[in-house]
């Protein structure tokens, strides 16, 4: 885990919509060089947390890739990558294209991509941005185990190069493999945060999986 000053720090964030408390006093930080995982079941408040953080005045420092978007469906994947890079005054991210095995898909229209293929395209788009902090909502959803492995390696490499990555993941096994630090969310409340060892210590079980830790702390 990085010791550098956090790129982003939020303190005591609460969100209430339609009389429902979606986030309750959440504090959180993200630093360069680390991959943090926001962990929780469906409805825990992961996406709400990301959308609360990703305000337009923070667009200089962070880029948020939401889950479930499929932009420019009538265009080819290669066009999407080029267009997006041009908006940031950059070139297409060749390393990401290779690592995510996107080369054979560049000539295909986004509409025709499978769920996993579209997710890899979104990952490549997000990684082509210059912002130091990336918020990725369910980055491995729809990927098979080989693709997940490749994506994880790429994310690790980008974190090692100095970016901060915050991933929202509901597959706890995937989270354990890629994240350095975890924020456990349930019903909008922070159950705990820290690395796996400290979470295990809090749960009183030094061998527990992340799932067991979560269940012990909820």
């Amino acid at each position: 885990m990085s010791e550098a000053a956090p790129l982003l720090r939020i303190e005591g964030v609460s969100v209430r919509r339609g009389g429902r408390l979606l986030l309750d006093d959440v504090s959180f930080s993200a630093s360069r060089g680390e991959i943090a995982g926001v962990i929780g079941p469906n409805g825990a408040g992961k996406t709400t947390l990301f959308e609360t953080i990703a305000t337009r005045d923070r667009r200089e420092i962070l880029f948020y890739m939401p889950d479930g978007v499929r932009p420019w469906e009538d265009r080819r994947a290669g066009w999407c990558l080029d267009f997006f890079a041009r908006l940031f005054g950059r070139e297409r991210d060749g390393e990401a294209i290779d690592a995510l095995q996107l080369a054979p898909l560049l000539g295909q229209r986004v509409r025709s991509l499978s769920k996993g293929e579209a997710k890899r395209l979104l990952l490549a788009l997000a990684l082509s941005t210059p912002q130091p902090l990336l918020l990725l909502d369910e980055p491995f959803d729809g990927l098979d185990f080989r693709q997940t492995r490749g994506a994880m390696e790429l994310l690790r490499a980008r974190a090692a190069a100095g970016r901060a990555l915050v991933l929202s993941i509901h597959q706890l096994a995937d989270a354990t493999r890629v994240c350095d630090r975890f924020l456990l969310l349930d019903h909008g409340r922070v159950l705990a945060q820290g690395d796996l060892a400290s979470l295990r210590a809090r749960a009183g079980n030094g061998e527990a999986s992340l799932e067991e830790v979560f269940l012990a702390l909820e």
Partner: protein
Amino acid sequence: MRWSEPRALVSKDLRELFGSTSYALLLLVAGPLTGLSFIAAVRNYTDASATTALASALSPLDGVLLPTFGAYDLLITFLVPFVAIRLLATEKSSGALRLLLQTPASLATQLGAKLLALIAGWIVALIPSAIALVLWRSYGGHLDPSETANLLLGLTLRYLLTCSIALAAAAAFANAASAAIAVLSFTIGTWAIDFFGAANSGWIATLARYTPAAMLRQFERGLLNADIVILTLAISLLLLTLAALILAPSKKQLIALAIGIALLFVRTHRSADLSEDRRNSFSPADERLLQSIDKPVDITLYLAAEDPRANDYERNVLTKLRRVVRDLRVAYPYGGRTLLFENDPRYGTIEYRIGAKHVVSRSTTEEIVLDELETLAGLTPPKRGEPAYPGYPLRAPPLHAATLFYAIWPLLVATAWLLCSRRTG
């Protein structure tokens, strides 16, 4: 700002527009619709030219240009909103807009790019009208450049306003269908205002002067009214700012909002009569006399708004007077009432008052009204000759028009659309 951003955005929106089925359909319809109007107009013009009484006053503006460009009024009302809504609504629903809002490109640049693409789309959609004008000239028909350009400007402003309404609706509503219903409801609302404004006075009649259709009518009469141009641009700016505020509010947008609101109240009272037959002007001699009146001129019209004489008077006299008399005040005491069958001795009269002098008349004829006013102001009415407009009769069949508009144009559009949609992306 790097130029690569707006270039990339405009290029994206151009591809999006030209590759879309909705725009292709608009283009496909534009040809035959313009052709139908043009061919009918040329035939009617030929028939009218054969009549000696009509031939001397025949104007290509009324006879050919208005019917031909009338097709575009239909397109703007019924098809353009869908094309414009699609351009924003697709990005909203697919999530692309959420990504774009995180790029360095400002929202103003993004909406501006869409507007530029839509303007490019408008220029392409005008090709059938250009073909009609070329055909008309090839038949030996007359065209006045000023009144043609003015009509085109009026339609372009109407198009801009419709696009702005559509983009604001696309920003405000969750999906394209709701936005389209909102825009069509707005259009129907303005028709209702037009309808009730014609038969009433007061605020509804004032509002009816500023509906898109009423504003276009001024251009169709050959009048270039600076206030209408400013008002249309101000409303368009306000609507686009509203769209930006809904999508992602920022302090800069409040400045644009303030500018738009300030422009709404700008009144220059300047207009130019660009019609070749000077239908919006009195004779130069009369205009000089009327401009020299330095006291307020009060006109009280004892006519119901629905009375045809009131309409004639408004169109043939008041429109021209408003352009030249410095301080003109018009009152309509019976404007909102139906008094045609009431036994009121004042009904049907028009009272003119300049300073302490006043006169009452029943005439709505231009020459008589001018005589009354000028005499009341202590001026001597000038001698008036026959209008100098020669009229442009032409007897010519609409050669090649049917082939061009009904066969070649649809074929060209279909081929271009296929090529565009294949290349897109």
